[in-house]
């Protein structure tokens, strides 16, 4: 399988449900190894943008490019190949409820790799222990807590050693310590596996501690109004909405 350069380019992307435009004219790039933050107030279309990036929703206009390939113009087989290089952690974890944790993690391995059953079992144990869930192999998702479901979802997203990891609000619903540990884990994954990470979040602590690039979506004007390193944005960005967001409303216009 040819290696897909983990670099995402979004050009003039317009997202819409029917006639209702959510965001228009989004143009930004995500470099390999970035921890890229998609931020903005509630209801500005952050999760919708993520659905466009992972190939679940076709754009109304514009392109999403992976390396040199424009995803939505590529033939289905090519799309499938690109999607297989993703790991996605959904907001609710989205574990398959009829499967145990180990079955959840092993399913993609069984489908898309040539490992033997023993190797798969070892890999599953490894991934679950990485997220601190060793010993929970035979639990069903409904039998563990929400935070554990989220971590198990991460183990599943990491199953195939993806080149790009997408997170939809990873720390929502986690206690501060777990959220912090998740942040550390994300950085660790980026450094050790060389993965590119895209995170939808409005958790300021995470944004400043792990993000090195970002885009800010504004629900009012329905487009992006800032981009770049969040810490730089905090220091330099003049836009009142961005300032108000990044300072938790303490510096309002």
């Amino acid at each position: 399988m040819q290696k897909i350069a983990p670099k995402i380019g979004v050009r003039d992307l317009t997202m819409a449900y029917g006639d209702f435009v959510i965001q228009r004219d989004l143009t930004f790039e995500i470099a390999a190894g970035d921890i890229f933050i998609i931020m903005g107030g509630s209801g500005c279309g952050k999760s919708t943008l993520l659905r466009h990036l992972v190939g679940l929703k076709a754009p109304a206009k514009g392109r999403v490019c992976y390396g040199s390939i424009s995803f939505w113009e590529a033939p289905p087989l090519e799309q499938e190949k690109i999607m297989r290089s993703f790991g996605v952690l959904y907001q609710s974890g989205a574990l398959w409820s009829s499967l145990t944790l180990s079955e959840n993690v092993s399913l993609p391995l069984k489908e898309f790799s040539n490992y033997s059953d023993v190797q798969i079992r070892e890999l599953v144990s490894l991934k679950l222990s990485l997220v601190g869930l060793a010993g929970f192999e035979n639990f069903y998702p409904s039998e563990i807590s929400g935070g554990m479901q989220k971590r198990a979802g991460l183990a599943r997203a990491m199953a195939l050693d993806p080149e790009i990891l997408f997170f939809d609000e990873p720390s929502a619903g986690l206690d501060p310590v777990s959220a912090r540990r998740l942040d550390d884990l994300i950085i660790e994954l980026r450094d050790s596996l060389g993965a590119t990470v895209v995170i939808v979040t409005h958790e300021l602590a995470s944004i400043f501690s792990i993000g090195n690039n970002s885009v800010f979506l504004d629900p009012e004007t329905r487009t992006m109004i800032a981009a770049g390193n969040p810490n730089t944005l905090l220091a330099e960005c003049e836009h009142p909405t961005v300032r108000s967001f990044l300072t938790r409303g303490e510096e309002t216009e």
Partner: protein
Amino acid sequence: MTHDTYGLKYFKKKQDTVLVQLYGSWEVSGDRRPALDALISLHEKTSLRRVEFDTGKLSAWNSGLLTFLLNIHAFCASHDIEMARNGLPNGVERILALALAVPENKDAHRAPTKTPLVDRVGAWALGQVDAGLEMAGFIGEVFAACLNMIRGAARFRLTDFLLFLQQCGSQALPIVSLISLLVGLILAFVGAVQLQMFGAQIYVANLVGLAMAREMGAMMAGIIMAGRTGAAFAAQLGTMQVNEEIDAFKTMGIDPVEFLVLPRMLALVVMMPLLCVYADLLGIAGGALVSIGMLDISAVEYYNQTKASLTLTHLGVGVFKSAVFGVLVAIAGCLRGMQCGRSSSAVGDAATSAVVTGIVFIIVSDALMTIVFTIIGI
């Protein structure tokens, strides 16, 4: 008025100023409308410029008082009357200020849109076309998945398939037993009354046997499965849609139609003919009960008459129909589940719609098949 536990009094202070004295416990609920009307009529008699409050005797209050004061505020604002809020208790004054701090967002109100009848009919028709296309697309996907399976490339788990076999097979037996036995019984009663007039009650066996084998066995099993299993499929897939589990399959590169729909459909297609034969037998048994008990026909006679009237072709027609119903019920259930919206009420709608769609599919396809079988003489 003093014997009331709570209330208010109006005192004219000056020509254009009124003092509202609130007293008692304003925690009880009650109609504040008369109190407001009194103020309005006061304003109509002598046009007021200022409203003041005295709450020295007010012992307790809750949001009910606040809504009353907001009504007064709205009245004062629209009639250019000054409302002196400083006489109110501190807490009331602060919460009132908070409620009035952000002006009402006029844009946020949803105006009830009025669309002309022609527009609505047009939108409905276009919606029907879209729904039809969506269904055709889904059937195409299922067909492609079936081809994949025949080539041996489809991905689903054998344990899932076995579980569904159990759910729509053996676990459905009690309800199928009851319904088909009773349907056989009813058919026998209906026939017996007419046939007895000609002394031809032995033909009850023909009537029940043919009706069960060709039509009622398959149809009853189909309708039971639409209500039982079709609804369950829609609810299962709908919940997976709500939980983003189906999205997770897609981004993982696993076709949800192959992984989720195919095992369910296969299980129904395998089990429906078996349930149909079982329903046929129990229906005939129901007919036999009536014949033996009421019509003085012996069990052997009934058996022989049934055997003479039923051929394998008749049974085959019913079994074929039931396999078709199995496909249709599975498609209806899975289609509605996959189309499910992202809320809990959408899951309920999906289950309801799956049953309705399934039953419509069954009856319409049964009518078509019966016409075709009659024309080609099977």
